[in-house]
């Protein structure tokens, strides 16, 4: 036991002595948290919309009014000439363009199916889809109001019609703030970097400079060597997570509804998996550069298939099956459930056992490989 302690002390001493390492561990994550916390948002604000009004009637002006009262859209006027819109879209001055045709008001009054053209710059399909959504919502509300006004003029008919009025309420993140959703994801990625990447780098570094062989001719067992190499990074990971969470709560005001001890326990389970992967990677490669590439490969795959950016429900069936082998998927799920919903073990036991199983599996595999490679 004592010997593991000596290894841990040695490792921490080396980390503390390496200015670059300190920066990677403590400064970079905070910068990432701030930058990504602000940058990664699916709320789209200040979308430029170009409105070309050929009708110029009171109805069309009312419609334009509604667009300009929407906080997500910024209306820009456009000259009412045929084909006047396209160059603006082409130059990227607006993402959406709305063309109101000449007889818009008259067609509306005469029930002649008035048509409105919406042009979307689909280069960024995400923004495009969101913009289209905003436009549709405004137009729908507008139509509903027009309809209601007309019905009021014929009260007998109005009474016979019942509108379905959906009343929606958003729970757990009522303001639908994407930063609440993103911060837990970012924290999980930081933790993965510390535990998986740094562990594999630090083991491979000892391989490179030959000290690993030197450790193997001491009376240490390979299990002791592994413990000595992983415990420091597990501790650093937990410390880093605590810093990032404090920051998230104080700066971004992310609520933590769930229990902190439970969070610590579940994080430890995830760290087990991540450390196991770090050791596993270190047995596959011989240089730190290779370790970096390999860790990067795992990291990017994990992030893309974790539901962090793209909902897993949108993925093709076979990819969804693959995501069940992704530990980060479970951890992000755990963090979000815990942070925002305050979910307890009764909800999260599935994730817990998936992580435990995966962690134990990869740890045993990695330890066996480690033993064979170095002995």
């Amino acid at each position, binding site marked *: 036991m004592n010997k593991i302690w000596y290894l841990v002390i040695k490792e921490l001493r*080396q980390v503390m002595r390496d200015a670059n390492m300190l920066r990677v561990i403590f400064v970079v994550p905070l910068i990432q948290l701030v930058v990504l916390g602000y940058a990664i948002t699916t709320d789209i604000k200040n979308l430029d919309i170009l409105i070309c009004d050929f009708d110029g009637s009171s109805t069309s002006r009312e419609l334009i009014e509604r667009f300009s009262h929407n906080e997500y859209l910024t209306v820009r006027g456009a000259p009412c000439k045929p084909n006047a819109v396209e160059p603006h879209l082409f130059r990227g001055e607006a993402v959406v363009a709305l063309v109101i045709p000449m007889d818009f008001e008259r067609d509306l009054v005469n029930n002649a199916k008035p048509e409105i053209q919406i042009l979307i710059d689909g280069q960024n399909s995400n923004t495009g889809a969101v913009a289209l959504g905003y436009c549709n919502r405004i137009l729908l509300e507008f139509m509903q109001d027009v309809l209601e006004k007309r019905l009021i003029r014929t009260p007998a008919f109005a009474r016979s019609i019942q509108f379905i009025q959906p009343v929606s309420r958003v729970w757990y993140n009522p303001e639908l703030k994407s930063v609440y959703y993103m911060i837990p994801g970012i924290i999980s990625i930081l933790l993965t970097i510390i535990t998986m990447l740094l562990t594999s780098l630090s083991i491979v570094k000892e391989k490179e400079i*030959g000290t690993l*062989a030197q450790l193997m001719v*001491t*009376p240490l067992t390979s299990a002791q060597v592994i413990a000595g190499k992983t415990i420091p990074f597990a501790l650093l990971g937990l410390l880093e997570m605590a810093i990032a969470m404090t920051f998230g709560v104080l700066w971004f005001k992310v609520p933590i509804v769930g229990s902190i001890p439970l969070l610590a326990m579940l994080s430890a389970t995830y760290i087990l998996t991540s450390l196991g992967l770090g050791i596993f990677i270190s047995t596959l490669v011989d240089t730190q550069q290779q370790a970096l590439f390999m860790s990067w490969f795992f990291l990017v795959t994990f992030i893309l298939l974790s539901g962090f950016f793209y909902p897993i429900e949108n993925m093709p069936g076979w990819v969804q099956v693959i995501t069940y082998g992704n530990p980060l998927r479970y951890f992000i799920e755990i963090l979000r459930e815990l942070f925002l919903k305050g979910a307890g073990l009764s909800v999260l036991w599935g994730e817990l056992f998936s992580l435990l199983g995966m962690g134990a599996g990869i740890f045993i595999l990695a330890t066996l490989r480690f033993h064979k490679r170095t002995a």
Partner: protein
Amino acid sequence: MPESAISVVNLQKQYGQTPALNSVSLEIRQGEMFGLIGPDGAGKTTLMRILSSLMDPDAGECRLLGISVKEHPEKVRRVIGYMPQRFSLYPDLTVGENLRFFADLFGVPRLDRQKRTEDLLGFARLSPFIKRRAGRLSGGMKQKLALCCALIHTPRLLILDEPTTGVDPVSRREFWEILKALKDQGVTLLVSTPYMDEAQRCDRIALIHKGNILAEGSALEVIARFPGKVVAVFGPDLPGLAGWFKKKLRSEQVQILGDRVRLNLFTQPRVSMDELCAGAEDAGIAIDAVDEVGPGLEDTFIALVAGKEEAHGAIG
């Protein structure tokens, strides 16, 4: 107490299709300084890594101080010190921290440690550098620190893999003096080196080539196995002389050395030495004198390698 410090029987190791050790057997006595001599790629490092329990052999057995490496690697690790070819300490830790780290890992009692550390550092003349980071030491000092770390747990057997490769001549001599002092304290040493001159410092040596032990014994005993003779030829045009002899003999047999051309005649040339010299004179290359000189270890090594290859060729 077992008679031999290291006992190796029929050790085999292959890397893929390439044999690294070919049925190697060795006996090294207690208290002996044993040299493993051979060029790069001869199998020296492989043998030492297997002995230090860092690598498993394909076949064969080795016992260190009577302990089987295969059955009790952890016991072997406690009684031996191993110093790998490459500097393998933590460059970002100081001299003192490196020593203390290995003392901790070997469980050196705290009481003994202070004295042991002081003794070792004083012995290696590293005491003034105890606070310096290992990465900032010179090549020779790094090797001495590595030796100190390998000695921290007072091993009875020391395995050193090319400890003086890449070290300047003065530090090399100093290093060998330290090894000699260790031997006088009763430590058994197994040292590998590609330098033939260093072999003279060992009690006994083994010449190793392509995984085969070619000869074993004291340096004199090994040299006594040299089959032919060595001749020094003097003349004004040494390159011309060397060129002439290279045409008549194998190129590895001819060497310009200072003021002479040295001929390693491990096999009788087809024509006699007198005829060779007469031929050179006829070709207009002057010869002043011809002397027979004593063979060295390198001559013996070349002869034994050639003999081995011929025997191999005859079979195949």
